[in-house]
């Protein structure tokens, strides 16, 4: 049992437990916090995999951005101390059945599948490579998505503004 293994299991356990808590917690702010934990644990997994850049983005954008946004909206729209009533049992059972059967199916297929492994030499996952690839217009270069996403973000921003902006 190496430290890596322990860390992995720790992150795994955290992710799963906090995920479950996120979707079951009856206080909304707590749910948001649990979500934050899930995202952070995920970032931990990325670190574990040596994907620092990805982990950083995860922390900054996801944990830092989205969760804050969510909490912000919670504050706008909800009473913090309000406790939700449980959803109707039939709904829960139906949803659980669907989710569990889907999960069973997916896991079964994942575990049965023999994955092929890439044969080319691995590329070093450092900032230099990430930077060049991000701006490369060649094969395996991601300049185009990088540019396009800015349009998406611009449009999303305008969209969010016109909706959220209070009218006269």
């Amino acid at each position, binding site marked *: 049992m190496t430290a890596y293994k322990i860390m992995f299991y720790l992150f795994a356990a955290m992710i799963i437990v906090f995920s479950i808590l996120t979707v079951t917690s009856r206080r909304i702010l707590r749910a948001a916090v649990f979500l934050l934990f899930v995202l952070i644990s995920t970032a931990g997994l990325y670190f574990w995999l040596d994907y620092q850049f990805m982990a950083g983005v995860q922390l900054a954008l996801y944990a830092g951005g989205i969760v804050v946004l969510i909490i912000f909206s919670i504050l706008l729209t909800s009473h913090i101390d309000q406790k939700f009533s449980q959803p109707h049992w039939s709904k829960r059972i139906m949803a659980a059945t669907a989710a569990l059967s889907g999960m069973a199916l997916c896991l079964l297929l*994942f575990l049965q599948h023999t994955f092929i492994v890439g044969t080319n030499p691995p590329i070093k996952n450092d900032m230099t490579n990430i930077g060049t690839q991000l701006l490369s217009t060649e094969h395996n*270069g991601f300049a185009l998505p990088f540019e*396009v996403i800015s*349009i998406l973000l611009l449009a999303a921003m305008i969209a*969010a503004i016109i909706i959220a902006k209070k*009218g006269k």
Partner: protein
Amino acid sequence: MNLDQFLIMRHELLLIGVVLLLLIAEVFSKSEKKHFMIPFAIILFLLYTIVGFLPAKTGVLFGGMYQTSELVILFKNILNVAVFIILLQSASWLRKDINHERISEFYIILLSSLIGMNFMISAGDFLMFYLGLETATIPLTALAAFDKYKNKSAEAGIKFILSSALSSGILLFGLSILYGTTGSIYFTEVAEKLVASPLLVLGFIFFVSGMSFKISLVPFHFWTADVYEGAPVNVTSFLSVVSKGAAAFIFMVILFTVFKSLSNMWGDVLYLLSILTMTIGNLFAMRQKNMKRFLAFSSIAQAGFILLGIMGASELGMTSVVYFVLVYVFSNLAAFGVVSVISDKTGLESMDDYNGMYRTNPKLSLIMMLALFSLAGIPPVAGFFGKFFLFTSAASKGYYWLVLIAVLNATISLYYYLLVVKAMFINKNDTPIAKFKSTFTDRLALIICVAGIFAIGFASPIYELIRSLSFGF
């Protein structure tokens, strides 16, 4: 970026230019004189549309992430025309006081969405495809809620974004599986490395579910009706024509190129989906009273017919799909155009309000009738040709029973289209919609649509052109 690349990416780049121009104009415009944005945007877009028709280069850029062909360019042009008509139709709606503050935003969001679609149908890998898809969808959800003083519009927005998010989540999960099993996100590489395995099928099905959401195929269609009903009419027409058309196109291209080797299976997936879609869509459409909701379900059923074309898995099939989308653009926009005109003038959207409309507004009623006949596939309007070729495509693969079911469904669809015709022409009404004169832009839009409805069917060169650009396997 040299000129060649510019020419290849002409549509996207020009469109981004248009959006930026609008943004600049918005910044420098006085807040009480926003109206001028309307003609400005329309003319700008018209120019862009015209430029789009000029001969262009085709090719692959960004190491395969972006690709374009004559057919893709043609399809982008079709979308442009559709959007142009929608812009015309939305002019008088935007002119209303309540929308005064948000005119340019409307254009910017709409055109951004179009940019997304252009990237989506030009995508050469799943990342660009997904990115384009989201760029096309996310801003649109805001447009669905554009009438933000209406509960229904707000409801449409939230339903749209949440279900769209769920669907893209599932789609993404499918894509991740595809990536995991093939090791690439590039279409060409995935196609090469594709080996049928249960996991791959799972990924594929998740991908299909996500796409089905965009094209509104049963049982992934439920959002459609609510969103179409709640959204402003012009946004609805954008959703039902442009958005759906683009999604159907790229879906077909991906099936034809990436999943070529799975064609046996996806033929059957589509078989099931199309039966479900046509039937359920029709069954729901039968009972609708709200025109927008009615057209929503009818457009669901139409999507089922499109699948018949895709199932042909051939040049013929691709031609028929593109051709049908072209026909569908004009027919559906004509129908939505009429709904939009009436909704703008009177605020009425229920089928019962249309009773006796022919006596007061004969031209609008006639256009509506032609549009509905075209949707139902009645000659001599173009819809007949569109449907006929779709059925030909399915029949060419021997799906005769499916064709039978489809045509029977077309008969059911005729039933409810005739209900509208009946309302307008036959039903008596003491207080029909008063006679009114529609604005220039509305009329222009409708004239273009009607011309399209008549011309496309008979003009075989259009069909032959598409055919010459199509591919199959």
